[in-house]
């Protein structure tokens, strides 16, 4: 009898909750229908980022970059005289959370522009949501081609302000082969990660094309604690460098364990390395390794130095590549909104698509027909617990 009552009570309370949460939703579309173009007096930008989790610095840096861009636009009077405000939701580093956050920002909060994610696997979860609802989305740093291109079809509302994996993988292959004169490379990739798999494939193809040999191709799963089995196998093949296109927490552990096994080869990687945590966990083990990135804070050009100065003044600390990408993504978005005929999703979308020669911090940004930015990449070396500029590779 008691159990029955408990179930009834539970059902009743669920019903109440359901009714309560339904109400505002039911009212909202009616309001939106009355005013087709968002006639509100401010602009709302949504950001989905990994504010916590294994790649927490990705989300936090990107968020800082976006905040800086918003503050600078607001200081100038906002977009078309409307102030911009930001709403950030945490993806916790999980694709499913990213999709939920994107849906919430678009459907409940009715953002005018969606920014995020850094990781390709999470942007891939968000892209269909943005497309389906007709909300323009710009990913700052997702480099996997499929983020903006679903099979052969370009996603109409999804853009990025970074280069793509085929280019990034090629950059590192060219650098290793032409600049470092390396013949033999082993690959250690994260099998569960779209970004890592993509980079490894493109690196492999280009490196072979340039006459190098891939001596081993091993894999790991993000979150593994022990990489010594793979590293011992790699060590036996005696490569001159190891390409590890993963994220920084795993890479740092891999570097440590490689050194513990007496391996002295430099590690090579991509923009997923770019975090102060890499140097904290990796310590001495990661010194002398190289990775490709979107920009270098050491670049003397005034546009970059101005950004670095403003960022330092606002947040303290040198902006990493993801902060710069977040800043550029927001800037490109606001620039497009300023040019757009009205505030509707399609108008903003068309304006973003026609972005040409926008002077971003991470390079001159032109959005191509595939909704990707064509930009040069830089190669950085880990030296004295930070990254230092080595060279720039043009597309």
């Amino acid at each position, binding site marked *: 009898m008691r159990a029955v009552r408990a179930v009834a009570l539970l059902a009743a309370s669920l019903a109440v909750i359901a009714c309560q949460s339904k109400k505002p939703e039911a009212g909202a579309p009616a309001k939106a229908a009355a005013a087709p173009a968002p006639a509100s007096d401010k602009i709302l930008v949504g950001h989905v980022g990994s504010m*916590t*989790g294994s790649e927490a610095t990705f989300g936090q840096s990107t968020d800082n970059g976006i905040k800086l861009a918003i503050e600078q636009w607001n200081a100038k009077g906002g977009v078309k005289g409307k102030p911009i405000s930001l709403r950030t939701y945490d993806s916790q580093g999980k694709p499913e959370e990213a999709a939920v956050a994107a849906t919430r920002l678009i459907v409940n909060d009715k953002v005018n522009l969606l920014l995020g994610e850094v990781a390709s696997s999470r942007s891939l979860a968000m892209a269909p949501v943005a497309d389906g609802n007709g909300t323009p989305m710009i990913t700052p740093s997702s480099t996997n081609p499929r983020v903006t291109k679903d099979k052969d079809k370009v996603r109409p509302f999804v853009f990025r302000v970074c280069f793509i994996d085929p280019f990034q993988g090629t950059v590192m292959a060219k650098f290793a082969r032409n600049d470092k004169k390396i013949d033999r490379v082993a690959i250690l990739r994260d099998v569960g990660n779209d970004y890592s798999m993509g980079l490894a494939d493109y690196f492999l193809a280009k490196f072979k094309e340039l006459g190098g040999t891939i001596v081993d191709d091993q*894999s790991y799963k993000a*979150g593994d604690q022990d990489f*010594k*089995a*793979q590293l011992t196998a790699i060590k036996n093949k005696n490569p001159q460098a190891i390409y590890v296109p993963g994220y920084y927490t795993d890479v740092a*552990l891999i570097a440590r364990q490689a050194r*513990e096994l*007496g391996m002295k080869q430099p590690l090579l990687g991509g923009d997923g390395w770019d975090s102060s945590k890499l140097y904290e966990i990796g310590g001495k083990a990661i010194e002398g390794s190289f990775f490709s990135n979107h920009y270098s804070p050491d670049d003397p050009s005034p546009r970059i130095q101005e950004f670095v100065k403003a960022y330092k003044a606002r947040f303290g600390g040198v902006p990493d590549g993801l902060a710069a990408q977040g800043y550029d993504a927001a800037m490109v978005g606001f620039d497009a909104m300023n040019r757009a005929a009205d505030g509707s999703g399609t108008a903003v979308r068309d304006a973003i698509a026609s972005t040409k020669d926008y002077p971003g911090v991470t390079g001159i940004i032109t959005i191509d027909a595939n909704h990707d930015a064509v930009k040069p990449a830089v190669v950085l070396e880990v030296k004295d617990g930070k990254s230092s500029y080595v060279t720039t590779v043009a597309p």
Partner: protein
Amino acid sequence: MTELLQHVVNGVSLGTIYALIALGYTMVYGVLKLINFAHGDVYMAAAFAGFYIATALDVRDDPTIGKAVVVFLGAMAAAAALGWAIERFAYRPLRNRPRLATLITAIGISFLLEYGFQLPSLQAQGRTFEEVLRGWGWTVPAWLDSLVGVLPASFPPGPTPRFFPEPFTRIDWTVLGGVHVSNYDVVSFLVAVGFMLGLQWIVYRTRFGTAMRAVSFDPRVAGLMGIPVNRVISATFVLGSVLAAVAALLVAGSRPRIDPIMGLMPGLKAFVAAVFGGIGNVPGAMLGGLVLGLAEEMVAGYTVSSFRDGIAFAMLILVLLFRPEGLLGRVTVEKV
């Protein structure tokens, strides 16, 4: 040859960790016939306890042997308290219910710890402990002030991995023409063997061990004979949790990334190791852990590395098919 030896060293180092966790599983199973799925999460919680203590003592910038001892003892005490509390509040009330109820509770506790530790701390929410207490209309007592910086504000840790400082300095040796061994591997192995022998001695040579075996045989009759059943079971949980804490610190010291779900896979694999060796059997857990570690290492080193976890669980299935009682387990003879 060097490669093979290196794989053996790596495999033993990994297997030792599984063995240490498996010993805790096996002890609890031996006494209660309960698979304590929260065991891997006690391991995780112990790593975080060690992390908080190490941070408070500033081990990272200035490691000393004294501090290492404090970190180890502190984490062991925290794990012991957690193990005791889990048994007291989650398992004991269900002791006379169907065994399935306790098993489900164990899974619940496991998730509670994993996801509870992923909640944002007050610090991450930008609030302080003091503000919260004031919000409730309390004044903050002076002695709490010193604690505020360490635990309450930055607990729970949230899902972001933390960097665990080395409790004692790592020394690497190169032996036999290129095989790398570190003092962590050696210490872990010796500790595991030491604990295994110690447990064997406790179980077969002490009054407490006799009581454990009696409870394992039949708790009700043991109670009638004047054995304090509850105390014996509590002590078993405390002992198992302490073992998990030692394993956690040895792992975190050499693979310095800790996060709230770090106990999930090692916990499952240690369970496989315990079953493989014969659950309830102390040397069996040790053997199972080592075999599993070596098998994984060889699979990852010589075939495709993505198969390593698959192999662990395939081994479990094979053992259960052909030798359900495990390698060293005996069918109905005494457990523990």
